[in-house]
């Protein structure tokens, strides 16, 4: 536990404000906090005291972790902290035999002791470590960097803690004229290609519902097979299109089982703004977004759909749409979140998007051990808002792919999760 010595504040990033906006919608609808979980499956040897000490040292230089939102109409919202504020990342140690998925469900449904906290659950082989994080404070990559920093501090008790681990990782478009130009560029691109008639599996109107999830773990052999199939389309380099096409088709299969059909499917994909390999900043959301869309008839064949999405990726990269998006998202920090949400929903028939999607790549490939224990596997479980009600999130650790299905209770009808899962497995692994 550490008390803040001096007051301070930092501007919310565009991504932070977007997540605050979504969180407000979720809370108002009875969906709880918008949180994410990062899960480490550990072998034997975890030094939980070293974890506690390292966690306390990181907390001492991370007042932003308990930052309170301060916003004024048309001003820039800020995370604010004051002297005496207590920063702590609580560690809850569970008895052996507790099911980690039950604990994860509780955390995802908003039963959280602090903005960032740990759960440690002993297993026969070692332990499951759950890191719970409030999404408006951290993104998936930030959660990985948080774990890496804890591991570094635990490995060397004399290592210097790095203060100020927040703020912008990249130069920004400055000046209103330039920002407006970038926002206009993004808006023109989006509306020229926005897909009409999108549907999500949940209602367009927010409804209460607890968070549900399933982590599909592929073996090394299966992962090799999946990547080889993807490489036949993408030459092994641009695989996001392949996974996104499979995600669209899995949702299409469920809609078809309901006797329904969306005219098209649309989803964003996060683009990291941190340099690859960077250790900082840990805190705040540093992602821009690319927007992908395909008409229903373009999803008949997986490889063809993946190629079309790959072309969209190349087109957006050429136009540097991520910088245009980032400028627009930062501009929207100056409008009230209810208005931001209204724009998001208005342009998508209320659904916001067909579903949420990401592929976060390798989970900390450079980190083999965590506080004395070998990391045997690792994945993320983000909760999702409804609308749209579902999300599919891919990642990899030590040559093994994971696909996390995340949804809100009531969005999937009986049997629909199995349908979605079997379609995904069939597309990824082949018939």
């Amino acid at each position, binding site marked *: 536990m550490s008390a803040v010595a001096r007051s301070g504040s930092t501007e919310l990033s565009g991504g932070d404000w977007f997540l605050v906006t979504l969180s407000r919608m979720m809370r108002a609808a009875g969906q709880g906090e918008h949180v994410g979980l990062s899960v480490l499956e550990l072998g034997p040897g975890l030094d939980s005291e070293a974890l506690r000490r390292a966690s306390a040292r990181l907390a001492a230089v991370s007042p932003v972790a308990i930052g309170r939102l301060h916003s004024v109409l048309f001003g820039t919202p800020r995370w604010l902290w004051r002297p005496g504020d207590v920063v702590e990342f609580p560690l809850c140690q569970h008895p052996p035999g507790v099911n980690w998925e039950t604990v994860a469900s509780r955390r995802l449904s908003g039963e959280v002791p602090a903005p960032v906290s740990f759960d440690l659950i002993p297993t026969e082989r070692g332990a499951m470590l759950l890191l719970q994080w409030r999404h408006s404070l951290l993104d998936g990559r930030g959660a990985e960097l948080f774990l890496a920093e804890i591991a570094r501090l635990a490995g060397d008790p004399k290592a210097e803690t790095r203060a100020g681990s927040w703020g912008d990782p990249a130069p920004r478009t400055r000046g209103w004229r330039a920002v407006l130009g970038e926002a206009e560029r993004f808006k023109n691109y989006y509306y020229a290609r926005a897909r009409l008639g999108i549907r999500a599996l949940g209602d367009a109107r927010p409804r209460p519902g607890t968070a549900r999830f399933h982590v599909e773990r592929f073996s090394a052999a299966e992962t090799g097979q999946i990547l080889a199939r993807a490489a036949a389309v993408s*030459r*092994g*380099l*641009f*695989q*996001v299109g392949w996974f996104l096409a499979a995600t669209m088709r899995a949702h299409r299969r469920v809609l078809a089982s309901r006797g329904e059909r969306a005219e098209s499917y649309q989803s964003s994909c996060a*683009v*990291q703004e941190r*340099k*690859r*390999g*960077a*250790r900082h900043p840990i805190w705040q959301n540093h992602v821009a977004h690319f927007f992908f869309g395909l008409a229903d008839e373009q999803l008949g064949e997986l490889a063809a759909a993946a190629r079309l999405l790959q072309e969209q*990726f*190349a087109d957006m*990269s*050429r136009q540097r749409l*991520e910088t245009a998006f980032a400028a627009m998202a930062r501009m929207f920090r100056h409008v009230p979140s209810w208005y931001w949400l209204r724009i998001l929903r208005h342009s998508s028939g209320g659904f916001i998007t067909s579903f949420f999607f990401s592929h976060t*790549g390798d989970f900390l*490939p450079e980190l083999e051990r965590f506080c004395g224990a070998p990391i045997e596997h690792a994945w993320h479980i983000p909760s999702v808002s409804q609308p749209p009600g579902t999300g599919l999130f891919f990642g990899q650790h030590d040559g093994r792919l994971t696909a996390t299905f995340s949804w809100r209770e009531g969005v999937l009808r009986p049997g629909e999760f199995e349908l979605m899962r079997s379609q995904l497995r069939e597309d990824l692994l082949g018939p």
Partner: protein
Amino acid sequence: MSQPPAPCPRAPSAPEVEQLADRIFRRIASDLLELSAVSGVDVDLFAAGLDSMAIMQIILMLEQEFGVHLPDVAVTRQTFATARSIAQAALTAGAAP
């Protein structure tokens, strides 16, 4: 009248590769990847975090700054393994050293 035969592609010399690889490495280190001062033109870029977004940005950089369009067959994992292999591919595709 028949077309004159296309000139045979000339294999780039070692100093040409070295020079271009160094320029490419410095651009990647300044804008795309967190690379330490000790790493150089032979550092494994995938191990340093190179992903599809960064590869696309390298392709655009080669087009915009070096005036070279990599042919589709050259867009492979081997090409982007190191700054040296990128330089080799760029020179083969017609980049000025």
